[in-house]
C-alpha cells in the first residue's frame, strides 16, 4: 500500500534535478541539429572531458552549500594546489606521488582553516571564505605572477589516455560522481548535511552534531577543490596563478543551474552534475554556432535568473 504514489513523490522531490537535466537534453538536441561539427562522437567526448574540471569543483561547492554554507575560496584553492603540484613535479614522473600528496594537503589545510573560522571563530561563511580567497590569491601571486612548474608526462597524459577505448578522464569522472552520489544519498553523513542546511536547530535536537557536520563540509570542499586543481593541470601542463579567477563564478553557476538552493538543505549531486554539463555544452554550443564568449555569459545569466524565478514560484505555492 505504501508504495502507491511513489513515482509522484519522487518527481516532486527531484523536480529541480529533472529541470537541470531537461535543459541539458534540450541543449544537446539543439546543438546536434544546428551544428554539423558537433555531430562527431569525438567532439561530444571532448565536451564531456571539458566538464570534468568545473564539475569536480561544483561538486565540492555542493557539499558546503547543501549544508547551509558557502565557500568562496574554492577557485584559489584549486589554483594553489595546481601550482604546488606543477612546481613539485617539475616535469618528472617520480615526483608525482609527492606532488599529488602536497596538492591535496593544501586542500586539507585550507579546509580545516575554513571550517574552524566558520564553526569555532563563528565568522559568517561568506566573509570567512572571502578572506581566505584573498589570502590564497596573495600567496599565489607573491610566489609568481607567471606560470610556474611543469607537469610530468605520465600525469598530463591522463588527459589523452584511454582504457579499452574509454578516456581515463571519463572513468575518473564516473567514479568521482558515483562516490559523491553515494556519500550524499546513501550515508548518514549525507542525510546530516541536508538536515543541517535545512533546519540546523531541528537537526541539533535530533541529535545531529551540527558543527561537526558543517566543519566536515568545508574540509571536503577544499580537498575536492584541490583535486580539481590537480585535474586541470593535466590540461594546462603548468601551474598558473590566475587559474582560479573565473572558477568561483562558474562553479556557483553550475551549482545553481543544478538546482541546489543557496539557502541550503536542497539539491542533489545528480543535479549538480547536470548543471556542470549544461555549462560545458553551452560553451560547445556557442563555439559551434560561432557566437562570442560575452554573449555566452549573457545567456548563462538569463538561465540562472529564469531558473531561480521558477524555483521561487514553486516555493510560494
Amino acid at each position: 500500500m505504501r508504495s502507491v504514489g511513489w513515482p509522484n513523490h519522487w518527481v516532486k522531490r527531484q523536480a529541480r534535478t529533472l529541470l537541470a537535466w531537461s535543459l541539458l537534453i534540450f541543449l544537446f538536441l539543439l546543438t546536434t541539429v544546428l551544428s554539423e561539427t558537433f555531430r562527431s562522437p569525438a567532439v561530444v567526448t571532448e565536451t564531456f572531458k571539458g566538464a570534468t574540471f568545473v564539475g569536480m569543483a561544483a561538486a565540492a561547492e555542493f557539499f558546503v552549500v547543501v549544508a547551509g554554507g558557502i565557500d568562496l575560496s574554492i577557485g584559489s584553492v584549486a589554483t594553489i594546489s595546481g601550482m604546488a603540484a606543477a612546481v613539485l613535479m617539475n616535469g618528472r614522473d617520480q615526483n608525482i606521488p609527492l606532488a599529488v600528496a602536497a596538492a591535496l594537503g593544501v586542500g586539507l589545510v585550507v579546509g580545516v582553516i575554513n571550517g574552524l573560522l566558520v564553526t569555532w571563530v563563528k565568522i559568517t561563511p561568506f566573509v570567512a571564505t572571502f578572506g581566505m580567497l584573498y589570502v590564497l590569491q596573495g600567496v599565489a601571486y607573491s610566489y609568481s605572477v607567471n606560470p610556474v612548474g611543469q607537469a610530468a608526462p605520465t600525469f598530463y597524459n591522463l588527459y589523452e589516455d584511454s582504457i579499452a577505448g574509454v578516456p581515463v578522464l571519463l572513468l575518473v569522472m564516473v567514479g568521482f560522481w558515483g562516490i559523491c552520489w553515494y556519500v550524499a544519498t546513501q550515508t548518514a553523513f549525507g542525510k546530516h548535511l541536508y538536515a543541517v542546511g535545512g533546519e540546523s536547530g531541528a537537526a541539533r535536537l535530533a541529535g545531529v552534531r551540527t558543527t561537526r557536520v558543517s566543519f566536515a563540509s568545508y574540509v571536503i570542499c577544499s580537498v575536492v577543490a584541490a583535486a580539481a586543481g590537480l585535474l586541470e593541470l593535466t590540461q594546462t601542463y603548468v601551474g598558473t596563478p590566475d587559474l582560479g579567477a573565473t572558477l568561483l563564478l562558474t562553479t556557483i553557476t553550475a551549482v545553481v543551474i543544478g538546482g541546489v538552493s543557496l539557502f541550503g538543505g536542497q539539491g542533489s549531486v545528480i543535479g549538480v552534475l547536470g548543471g556542470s554539463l549544461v555549462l560545458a555544452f553551452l560553451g560547445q554550443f556557442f563555439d559551434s554556432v560561432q557566437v562570442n564568449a560575452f554573449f555566452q555569459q549573457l545567456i548563462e545569466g538569463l538561465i540562472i535568473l529564469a531558473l531561480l524565478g521558477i524555483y521561487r514560484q514553486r516555493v510560494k505555492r
Partner: protein
Amino acid sequence: MNVERALVSARGIYKHYGGIRALADVSLDIGSAEIHALVGENGAGKSTLVKIMTGAEKQDAGQVMVDGREAQLTPEKARELGIGAVYQEPSLIPAMTVLENVFLGWEQRFGLGLLDHRRMRREAAAALDNIGARIHLETEVATLSVADRQLVEIARALVQQARVLIFDEPSAVLSGVELERIFNVIKELRSHGLGILYISHRLAEIFELADRATVLKDGRVVASRPVNELTMEDLIHLMVGREIGARHLRPEAARDRIVLEVDKLALGQDREPISFELHAGEVLGLAGLVGSGRTRLANALGGIRPARAGVVFRNGRPVRLKRPSDAMRAGIVVIPEDRKREGLILGHSVRENLALASLKELSTIGMVSAKAERRLASEAVKVFAVRPPAIDVATGTLSGGNQQKVVLGKWLVRKPSAEVVVLDEPTRGVDVGAKYEIYNLIDALVARGSGVVLISSELPEVIAMSDRVLVMSAGNIVGELKRGELSEERILRLAVLGREHELAASEGGGDAA
C-alpha cells in the same frame, strides 16, 4: 511516586537566563505507564524544564536522574537513554522526507556507512502503523499538516525506543479532531508502559488525559498531585496569584471619544470576526494565552499582516491598513513583541533608531539634518529615561528594558503623535525597574489623549494597567471585563475555558462561577 519507580526525575533544578529566573528548585518524576501533566501560565517555566530534560539546555544546578542514576544530558544522550520529545517549535526538517526525518540522527546502516534503507523503511512504517498514522514515507514533511508532523515526531521517538515521551503543548497548535487523535495515541502509548510528560495550559484536557498534574508558577513547583484529587478550581487557583507589587491606579478614562473602531475584522479561517472600540485616554488590555490571536490582531492593526476582511475606523473614518506605512499615516503605531528583530536595528546607534520613524520631519529638501536628529535623540533619551543616557552607543548594548524604551521613544517622539498605540508584550524580558518606567510611559501616553491597546501575558500587569480587558481564546474575543470586574481568576477562566465555559455555566446555573 517514589524515586526508584520513576523512569526520569528532575531533582532541584535551577535555571537563569541572564538576570531572569526561569526555574527554581523544580523536582518532578515521570513514572512508567503514567501521563504526567505539567501546567502553568505563559512564562511559568514549562518549556525551560522540557529543554533541560531533553538535553537541549543545561541546568545551572540540580540533577536529572534516569532510572535512578544521575545523567549528564545532551540531545544525543537523552535519546540514548530513551527520552523522546514532541516539540511545539519545528523539530523536523521540512525539505526532507518523512522517512529521512524519522531516522535523522538515528540512521541504521550496514558497514561502510551504507544506509540500511529497507530496514528503516520497515521500522518507520511499523511505527506509523502503530499509532494509526497513514502517512507516506516519501512525502516531504513541508507538505504535511501540523497534526501529521506531530505523528511523525511520535513515530521518530518510537523507532528510537523511547520510554519517556515529552509533549510540549500540542494543544497550542492543534485542535478538534486532530487533537483528539493525538490524545488517543498518547493513551495508547501509556498502555504500552511509556511515561508521558504532557505540557499544557488548557486545563480541561488535563482532566481528560492525565493521571497526575504538577503546577509551575514563576519557575517553582506549587503543587504536584494525582488528578483525581484536584478540581478545575484548584488548578486555576494554583496557577494564578503572582505578585506585581503596589501601583497607583490612574483615574478611570472618560471614554467620551472613540479613537479606534474595529468592525468585524476577519483574522483567519474558522475565526469569528472581531469587533471592539478604543477610546481616547483608555488602556484596553488584551489578555489570552499564547496563540489566542492577540499578536495576529496587533499585526492586522499595524498593517504588518493585513486582515482578510472587515473595516477599521479612525475617528469615524474608515482607513486602509495594507502595509505599515498605511497604519503610520492613520496614526496607529504597533510596537511588536519581538523588539530585537522588528522593533530595533540593534547595530545602529540609539540616535539613529530614535530618528528612524521621523526622518521626513527631520529633513529639509531631502537632507536629514544631523543637528535636528541629535536634538530629537537627546530629548527623547532624557524624557524616556534611557540608561545610559548616551545617544551614540549601539542600541544592542543596552539592557532589554532600555531597548524597549528606545522602541517606545521612536514612536512617541514622532509628530504628529499617534492616537492609537498597540503594545505587544512591552515588558517581556525586562527587569522590574524598567517595567515601572514603561508603565509610566503608558500613563503618559493616555494622559496626552492616546488610546492604548496593551497585549500582555502577565495578568497582574494587565489588571493593574487596563481600564478594560478583552479576553481572547482560539482567535475569538470571549469576554470583556471592566475595571471593577478584573481578577486573575476571571481572566484566566475565560482564556482557558473560552466560551464553552460560559455556555456551560449559564446552562448549569453558573456552578463554576
